[in-house]
């Protein structure tokens, strides 16, 4: 074989770079970025009343299940909402977004989502024939690996057959937020925007300025430079919720953190409620969850703003809520 000279190397390297640029150019021409990569809104969730369903079952807006193991709570809640097959189709690319805010807490401290609940949802999706089920979050203190390890989520999710994804820096893309009132553009994780099904599994926690960390606040794990949200926190949380729209939000209130959140660290601040609140309407889930802390939806500005923006309902009297206590 002939010697591979520096000239050859430069030639091939140049050809490689050229090919990449050409491919980039072609993809850019064939699919306008804003149209394909950045749709203004994701595909709508299957409506609560399915027109082609002869029995015309009306699914509840919210399912609240109490008293049971995490897996049983998750299964019952999803069943009440119409079953996992209403949300996950065969071969779907599913992303589950738990809350692993502080990387150093085990699940008992209620600062991170319950690992068995996350695993149960992953298992449900796989049972429905999902092609890929990935669990991802970006903790705000510490590395993602340590967060997945300490919270116990890696172990349980892998047991259930799901994948853990360490969010890669190169996958954040500057994304338009057409409905945003304060922020019109932000760096958001592309895969989360592109997923067929996004399931948001926040944990209910106290929070200094958001007051509560619930479903909408949890979406901040999908963006870069999240601390800049605080310059106008409530509006920006709502703006983000207008762009990142989970198919389903399953709120973990198995243990809730009532003080010193969102980081926690003191078991005296943890209250065990063994409750799961699920629904397609993220604003409705958050609104109901305020009651866990003895608050009303209007006490949390971002819930109020999101409802005003038409992102969901905060009127608990008008919502169809199914409440079930297991084993009773």
């Amino acid at each position: 074989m002939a010697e591979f000279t520096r000239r050859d190397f430069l030639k091939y390297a140049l050809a490689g770079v050229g090919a990449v640029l050409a491919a980039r150019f072609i993809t850019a021409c064939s699919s306008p970025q804003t149209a394909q990569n950045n749709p203004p809104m994701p595909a709508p969730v299957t409506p609560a009343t399915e027109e082609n369903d002869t029995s015309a079952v009306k699914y509840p807006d919210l399912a609240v299940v109490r008293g049971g193991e995490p897996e049983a709570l998750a299964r019952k809640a999803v069943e009440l909402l119409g079953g996992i097959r209403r949300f996950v189709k065969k071969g779907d690319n599913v992303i589950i977004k738990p809350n692993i805010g502080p990387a150093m807490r085990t699940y008992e401290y209620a600062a991170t989502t319950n690992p068995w609940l996350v695993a149960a949802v992953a298992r449900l999706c796989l049972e429905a024939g999902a092609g890929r089920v990935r669990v991802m979050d970006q903790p705000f203190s510490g590395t993602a690996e340590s967060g997945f390890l300490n919270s116990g989520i890696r172990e349980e999710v892998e047991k259930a057959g799901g994948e853990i994804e360490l969010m890669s820096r190169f996958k954040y893309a500057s994304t338009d937020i057409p409905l945003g009132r304060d922020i019109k553009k932000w760096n958001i994780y592309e895969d989360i925007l592109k997923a067929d099904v996004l399931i948001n599994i926040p944990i209910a926690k106290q929070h200094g300025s958001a007051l509560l960390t619930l479903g909408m606040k949890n979406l901040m794990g999908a963006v870069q430079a999240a601390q800049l949200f605080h310059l106008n926190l409530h509006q920006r949380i709502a703006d983000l919720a207008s762009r990142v729209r989970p198919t389903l939000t399953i709120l973990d209130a198995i243990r809730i953190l009532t003080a010193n959140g969102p980081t926690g660290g003191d078991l005296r601040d943890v209250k065990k409620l063994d409750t799961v609140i699920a629904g397609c309407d993220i604003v409705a889930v958050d609104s109901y969850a305020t009651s866990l802390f003895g608050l009303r939806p209007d006490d949390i500005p971002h819930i109020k703003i999101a409802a005003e923006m038409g992102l969901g309902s905060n009127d608990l009297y008008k919502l169809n809520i199914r409440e079930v206590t297991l084993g009773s």
Partner: protein
Amino acid sequence: MAAENKSSAGWNTRSWLNLRTAIQALAFIGFLALFLNAVPLLMRLDPLAVLANFISGRSLPPFAFIALAMTLLALIFGRAWCGWLCPMGTLLEWISFNKCRTKKITIPDGWRSVKYVILIAIILAAVFSNLTLMIFDPLTIMVRTFATAIWPGLDLAVNAAESLLNNVPVFQAPLARFDNALRPLLLPTTQLSYPEGWIFAVVLAAIILMNLVAERFWCRCLCPLGAFYGLAGKISLIRRRVNESCIKCKLCEDTCPTGTIRRDKDCSSDPGECIVCLKCMDSCPCSTSDFGPMFSPAKFNSYDPVRRQLFLGLGAGAVLALLFRLGLPSKQRNPYAIRPPGAGEQDMTAKCIRCGECIKACPTGAIQPSQMDSGPEQLWTPVIVPRIGFCQYSCNACGSTCPVSAIPALSLAEKKSTIIGRAFIDRDRCLPWAQNTPCIVCEEMCPVPRKAILLHTVRTKREDGGTMLLQLPTVQAGRCIGCGLCEYKCPVEGESAIRVTA
């Protein structure tokens, strides 16, 4: 390592050379593996680091017997470390610029004494409890440069390539798999930043470029660890021998990478310079030189540290150690020099060997090599710079990685309650205090179980004339451990509105 007939089919000189090349490559891979996993073995292999730390810190560092074993090995094999194991030596051999040196330059023999002067200065400064000169140790140079320049630089390059390739749809899935599988093993998971990394890259590049003057210029003239092993080599058991049948053909002189074989000295070599690379045996047409046991000490050369070099080294060490101390860090210490958990200011001068293992071990890139801002005595010792990275609450990697216990190996529980500094809020910059803008990021981030930032709600005027509730943060000093997460996350651009001081 007895000489064998080259023509014999079995184990011959060429086999020894191949073995050396293989061991060099393996040792370099070993260096990278130790580096990536932050295993502090490398510095413990370094007898100079252990000796200097022992003298300076007045106590034996852990696992000192490893360095003792290395010294004993040197008493048998001389400077074989330099030719067989040293990652710096291997790097200098791989990037030797042998083909770029068209005419043979002979550098003055006297230059070889510089390394002995540095060695003696290191030891004498250590007597004054100063280890600043350990910055010249080749292993500290390697670890420091890899930690602050090469590793994060490689990460930037990989990330740039990934970002580019990610635009092509067919590459996206394999890229993601590559990134998730290999990044945790080989690259930092968060973007690390070392503003002074370029300095270390320039230093290493300069050392490599010195090869343009003469092969292994660093090893010949400057390396203090080489000097240490060289002194052991003078009395080592196995040394190069030349017998009477040598025809002075000069072939070995031309191949010797340290230039110690000289025809004008009967083709003999100085065991203090010889790195046991065995190339001379391979080049010798008559098999007149070999490596075997010798029992009388080697004779001294003009450049050996006999009198002038000894006094020069002693003088330089003493003067430097004392000059550096004029700053008296205890009287006026840099308030922003936050030290890794549990490390005292005194330990930083007297125990830290400036190896940079803690810099590599820190998962957030918080630990930075201090520059001159803490005085020359503290040059390149670890400081935490919260605006660049924070001390992770549940992490004690720096202490468990420090090879010489300059940073104590604290348990996680001890580390969580170790105070490394205190946060102070700058009310002239803080958004709620200075601009009536709601912000509680510092309170939100504070990782201690009973938060060290308290929020006081006040009613205040809004821009439009109405009133609003505003939360004002204050620091509860008794609870703050100085981890710097608040300073790191503070959304005020430029200088943080909350700052940790030591």
